[in-house]
């Protein structure tokens, strides 16, 4: 499976972003995985833990937000969870909708501990 490669790409991305916080320690990264991304969250989490423990970024936690497929109703613009094409809009009952989200594979946030204030505390 490719989750090890994806986990490694997350670490590389965190490393790049870390340059913006030279005095801080990144303690957590938020990752959004859509159900259509083709990535298994449990396997991803396992691989991330295995890679991070011996790395320069340890300790670093991961929070995975698993995102369902969502559609936008063409009639009333409501965005709603749509497991399949043709799902019924909960607001107006229409079945004409377009894909809106659900293939995410992205970093959503970093939690940074400020080294200067931690030292002064």
């Amino acid at each position, binding site marked *: 499976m*490719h989750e090890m490669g994806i986990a490694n790409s997350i670490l*590389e991305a965190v490393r790049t972003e870390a340059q913006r916080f030279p005095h801080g320690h990144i303690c957590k990264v938020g990752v959004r995985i859509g159900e*259509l991304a*083709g990535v298994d969250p449990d396997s991803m989490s396992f691989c991330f833990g295995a890679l991070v423990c011996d790395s320069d970024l340890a300790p670093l936690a991961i929070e995975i937000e698993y995102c369902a497929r969502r559609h936008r109703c063409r009639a009333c613009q409501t965005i709603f969870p749509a497991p399949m094409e043709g799902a019924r809009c909960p607001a107006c009952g229409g079945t004409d909708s377009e894909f809106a989200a659900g293939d995410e594979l*992205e970093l959503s946030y*970093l939690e*940074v501990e400020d080294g200067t204030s931690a030292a002064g505390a």
Partner: protein
Amino acid sequence: MERVPLERKVLNENGRIAEELRARFAEHGVLCLNLISSPGSGKTTLLERTLESFAPGECVAVLTGDIQTDNDAQRLSRFGFPVKQITTGGTCHLDARMIEKALADWRLEDIDLLIIENVGNLVCPSSYDLGEAAKIVVLSVTEGEEKPLKYPSIFFKSELMILNKTDLLPYVPFQIALAEENARRVHAGIEIVRTSCLNREGLTDWLAWLSRKRAAARKPAASAAF
């Protein structure tokens, strides 16, 4: 503790290389297709039937990915078109950097159609953009009708589904209409062709699809200079 919001793709480096490749393909009028399926669904045989249909001198090239061996490249190179094997050595998918590297000593000016045969795997290749114009998923009738529901990512991202090995339909309990319905439940706009590489049923439909895509990708003639 401070929470800093980010909007950054995990695979942005792969995405960057894929976009560069896509721009180069567009510049040279290359139609690039990314062929994906589980192992053994008939990608290489389909490519054999495809390559043998082309006249010598057609500007067609193939990159074929496998974890081990150059078996597929050997099978495909006998048709006289440029074929290169990418051996991933354990990696279960191709990524954009592998494609960039494999193309380094090919002149894109000499290629109109580039077909990438991905590593046999219905999951991992779906995450990696290779700069292709379209992904094509091959599903064979021995695999089960529920595959589009079990592996929605690749069926969602593919423009075309090739339902292959239809010659075996009399021998397997495969409901072809249900498989097609399942694919459309995941991706309403997916195009579908049914093929058999043994009795050649449907190959003309596949070649017609290919020919339409090639015509659309052709570099527009340079406009007259003022």
